[in-house]
């Protein structure tokens, strides 16, 4: 019986490796899920003397999308965001991360603006509070201001279909 021990241990290892092949070792889950969205008050892109804070979205389910004009992957997901905005599926607030205002405005003019408004985070400090470590990232926040889910990396049609829309439906039911 003892002779089979190495084989058994190896078999267990293989099981873990098989599971491992389906996981992404680089992806970091957010510890903020289930917690209140961190507060901030930041100026708004293209609106002088106006400021935004997440409290203004209380009572609504919304997306906070972290983007920048220098971000390549954002271009892939942007058409999807445009579509979501057109369908009025869910309000989207942009967080313009470590960017220049002019470049950001130009980018939106060219690629379309799905955002109700975009908040300026020039220093990246709001991003740090949200645990942002790459761009793009998208946070789903419920009507009580609690972060329900975080999408790391660009949104894809599959992610929208299989995760975002079902979650949205469930949240709307509980309102």
């Amino acid at each position, binding site marked *: 019986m003892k002779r089979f021990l190495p084989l058994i241990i190896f078999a267990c290892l293989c099981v873990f490796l098989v599971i491992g092949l389906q996981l992404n070792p680089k992806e*970091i889950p957010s*510890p903020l899920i289930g917690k209140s969205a961190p507060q901030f008050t930041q100026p708004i892109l293209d609106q002088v003397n106006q400021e935004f804070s997440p409290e203004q979205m209380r009572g609504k389910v919304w997306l906070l999308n972290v983007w920048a004009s220098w971000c390549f992957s954002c271009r892939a997901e942007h058409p999807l965001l445009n579509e979501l905005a057109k369908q009025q599926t869910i309000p989207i607030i942009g967080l313009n991360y470590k960017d220049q205002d002019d470049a950001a405005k130009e980018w939106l003019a060219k690629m379309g603006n799905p955002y109700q408004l975009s908040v300026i985070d020039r220093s990246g*400090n709001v991003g740090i509070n949200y645990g942002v470590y790459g761009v793009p990232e998208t946070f789903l926040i419920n009507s009580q201001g609690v972060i329900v889910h975080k999408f790391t990396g660009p949104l894809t049609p599959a992610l929208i279909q299989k995760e975002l829309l079902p979650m949205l439906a469930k949240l709307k039911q509980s309102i």
Partner: protein
Amino acid sequence: MNQFLNTFPRIALGVLLNLFLLTSLSMANEAKPLADNPELEAKVQMIAIELRCLVCQNETIAGSHAELAVDLRNQIRTQLQSGKSGEEIISYMVDRYGDFVLYKPPVKSNTFVLWFGPFIILLVGLWALLRHIRKERVVARLNSDNPDDVLKARALLSTVEKDTK
């Protein structure tokens, strides 16, 4: 003679001035530390080497050149300047990025096996070795060349062990 007395002080002054210039120049040449406040920087380093960079995930925030790492180092510096302690800053980071950001895995319930497993296995291994040595010595005292006897003896010893437990 008068001329000499007139020029000597000037020469002396000139030499003195030159000496002064030279010494201050050599002191001025001493390269300054890169950081404005080296003591603070050293403290930033001590905290930064405990945190993993999330972009270049194999490096610490201290060594990484990624923009996020630079931002986080700045955060650490600002917080240290406002009087926060090392532990507070680290828990600040863990609150936002999770346990992954710790370079040294925390000792929690889900890492007991990681931290204590090796030592436990070492003890088990040494115990198994000792047990084997003792068993073999008993078998050897049988003084038999017949492998079947040896097998039987070993089997008996194992059952005896089980019974006496």
